[in-house]
């Protein structure tokens, strides 16, 4: 898949998911991934094609997004464990929304999302960096064999 096409699909999937269930808006693109404390998750998928998807949120965005999703008014009441669970679900949904666009004529399987250190693959990945109304977000996808 062309880099531009994959990047556009990534951004469209993230926008759909963030606006619908996390009450968060993308305000623009940024030059690089979030700096400082962050929460990251990745998930592998099998289909046609297979690959791995990951995201990394600045810590303030992760807390705010978790609070929005769980319906908690004060994001300081959201535990680190709850934030991790929500960010994993966010990764699951963005990955699913992306694959539903890429693989509409076939089926795919998404593995259980895992929290990780937020390192992007050094080669073969398509990445996009976005500013949100509550922090920063990096998204990447690497399709097997590319």
């Amino acid at each position, binding site marked *: 898949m062309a880099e531009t096409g994959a990047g556009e699909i990534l951004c469209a999937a993230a926008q759909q998911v963030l606006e619908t269930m996390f009450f968060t808006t993308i305000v623009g693109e940024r030059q690089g991934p979030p700096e400082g404390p962050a929460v990251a998750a990745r998930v592998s998928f099998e289909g046609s094609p297979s690959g791995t998807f990951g995201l990394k949120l600045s810590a303030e965005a992760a807390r705010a997004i978790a609070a929005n999703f*769980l319906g908690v008014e004060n994001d300081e009441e959201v535990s680190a464990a709850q934030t991790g*669970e929500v960010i*994993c679900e966010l990764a699951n*949904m963005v990955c699913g*929304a992306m694959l539903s666009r890429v693989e*509409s004529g076939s089926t*795919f399987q998404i593995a259980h999302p895992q929290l990780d250190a937020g390192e992007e693959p050094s080669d073969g990945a398509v990445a996009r960096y976005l500013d949100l109304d509550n922090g920063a977000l990096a998204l990447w996808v690497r399709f097997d064999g590319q």
Partner: protein
Amino acid sequence: MGYRVLIVDDSPAMRSVIRRVIVLSGFDLEECLEAEHGGEACRLLQERPVDVILTDINMPVMNGERFLEAIKADQSLEAIPVVVVSTDATEHRIRRMLELGAQGYVTKPFFPESLRGELERVLGVNYG
């Protein structure tokens, strides 16, 4: 008497959100059971009958497709309406789950109104 609902999803956060949507939608909820995967859900259903099941597809141990097959193969459970709640929006997957006997399908991400509407439809109620 209220409804007994079973939510099957490996994400605790998603189970919490679905439960909240059901409560805020005004459903007369008697009991809301939760399971992390189809295997746990099958065990729960042997002990506690429910009125409707909402299930994810991609789950460990027993995924939603195998869970749905297990329900429809069990005469004591086959009449329970099942609504699939999944990130998979492909036509192929939706058609497959409906062919297996699911009565509804909601794609994540969803607006609360979508889940509420699908639940009302399969239960034959309208909370306005």
